């Protein structure tokens, strides 16, 4: 009995203390006032005062501040836009690759799979960094294009949103390919043959049979790209420019440069509220898929 208790309690209390409690602290600080003290916030909640005093003092000043300053609105909207566009781009690059892998000779598949997984184990930071050398004004891409005579002036790509899209597609591609590949691999090829026998062209058979059947994989892959891309920090700060507004970067700057902890916490709470919708949809998609398998 004691053993069972310890088995449950150890990971349970670890997560309570280092996941749930910190989260409650962020929530609390988001409701408190900034002060130029150290730590730079006024504790709004004193255990001795009790809940009633907390509620009477409660103010949503920081949240009101977020709605008034349009920097934050723009940052949320532009994060959503960047995450959405990059998810679509990743799907456009990833689907043909997943499809090609699923149609490749069986003995090649483990090797192809390994080639997809290998970049995933390589440092994320280094993979983003690799693009800095390629996309800069004097970078490899511009050198090659100028040498070929395609362009006369270097293209400005680094420090724009285009570089951010490229970075997100590049780093999150394995997350898109793997779930799509696993649904495509299980598809019964005879369904397509039947569609073709019944008069479909090869393309319409693909569009009417393969794509709908691989929808759970497409959905899973899209969420796996969209959710982390929304709060991304490294890619916009290395590849994006001053015009690239993403909420992860705003939060970082609010915290490290402006040292305004209450506003940073309020930014975090709202980001989380935005994420709840895609996360719930993702969970539902996964559950449906599991039920379908059983």
């Amino acid at each position, binding site marked *: 009995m004691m053993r069972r208790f310890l088995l449950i309690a150890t990971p349970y209390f670890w997560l309570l203390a280092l996941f749930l409690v910190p989260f409650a602290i962020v929530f609390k600080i988001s409701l408190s006032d900034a002060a130029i003290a150290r730590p730079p916030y006024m504790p709004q909640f004193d255990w001795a005062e009790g809940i009633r005093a907390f509620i009477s003092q409660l103010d949503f000043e920081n949240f009101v501040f977020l709605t008034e300053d349009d920097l934050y609105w723009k940052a949320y909207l532009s994060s959503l836009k960047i995450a959405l566009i990059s998810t679509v781009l990743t799907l456009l690059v990833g689907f043909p690759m997943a499809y090609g892998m699923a149609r490749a000779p069986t003995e090649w598949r483990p090797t192809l799979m390994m080639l997809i997984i290998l970049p995933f*184990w390589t440092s994320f930071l280094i993979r983003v960094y690799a693009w800095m050398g390629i996309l800069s004004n004097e970078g490899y891409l511009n050198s090659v294009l100028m040498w070929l005579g395609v362009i006369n002036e270097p293209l400005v790509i680094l420090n724009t949103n285009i570089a951010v899209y490229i970075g997100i597609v590049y780093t999150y591609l394995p997350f898109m390919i793997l779930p799509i590949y696993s649904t495509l691999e299980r598809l019964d090829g005879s369904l397509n043959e039947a569609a073709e026998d019944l008069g479909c062209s090869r393309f319409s058979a693909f569009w009417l049979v393969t794509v709908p059947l691989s929808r759970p994989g497409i959905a899973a892959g899209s969420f796996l790209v969209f959710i982390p891309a929304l709060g991304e920090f490294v890619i916009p700060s290395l590849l994006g420019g001053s015009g690239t507004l993403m909420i992860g970067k705003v939060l970082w700057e609010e915290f490290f440069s402006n040292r305004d902890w209450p506003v940073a916490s309020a930014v975090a709470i709202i980001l989380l509220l935005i994420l709840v919708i895609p996360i719930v949809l993702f969970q539902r998609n996964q559950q449906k898929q599991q039920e379908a398998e059983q």
Partner: protein
Amino acid sequence: MNRMSRFNAVSLTLGFAFLYIPMIILIIYSFNESRLVTVWGGFSTKWYGELFQNEAFLNAAWVTIKVAVMSSTIATVLGTMAAYVLVRGGRFMGRTLFSGMIYAPLVMPEVITGLSLLLLFIGIGLDRGVMTIVLAHTTFSMCYVSVVVSSRLVTFDKSLEEAALDLGCSPAESFRLVTLPIIAPAVISGWLLAFTLSLDDLVIASFTSGPSATTLPIRIFSAVRLGVTPEINALSTIMISIVTVGVITASLVTKRQMARQKAEERAAERG
């Protein structure tokens, strides 16, 4: 279907070129004599020499490895326990909250995890350093370990454990002698995943580290913010090679294991 259509062959070739060309360029230019990163000035390994004399990078590498070994080991123990509780634990109070806390960190943006842990450490007056990074990394990577291990626990036959118990094993013995050997591959890949996640992490480490502990990603990030440098190219090449060797070895080992397992199954069928 043994032949690939032209469309599939083209999309795979282009896709893999997109995935690998940036890394190949990085590797080639790490051997560039010139400091100008886009101009080829002849073959040289001098940046590797400079890297190994750079005290700051070596210290950061040591801190990173220490943190990764400690956090992934604790995370593997806690994550395996959590997986066992989730799959075999039955009902207990607060089970829903528990599984919520296992899955939530997987989708939590790193900036939020980092921010919240920093506020906790400051709130309880813990000095930031190696210890706080280990605590932070353990917390998020134990969730990954538990997902990996529980997917293995779900698929294996519970009656093997029950048979061990019937034959007089204590629950602890049955876990050690039956369950653990069966889930061992998942536990090992969980550890590797936790180790890699810890080596890789910039955001959470930046929030939870103090001036006394700088990890390699933090050091790399502050160096590359200003642009591409040949030393970082050399460092990246070393890291890419280690990962490549690791992944290829792991896949060869699993391939051999699967072959052996199949041979054993066939032998068992023949009796």
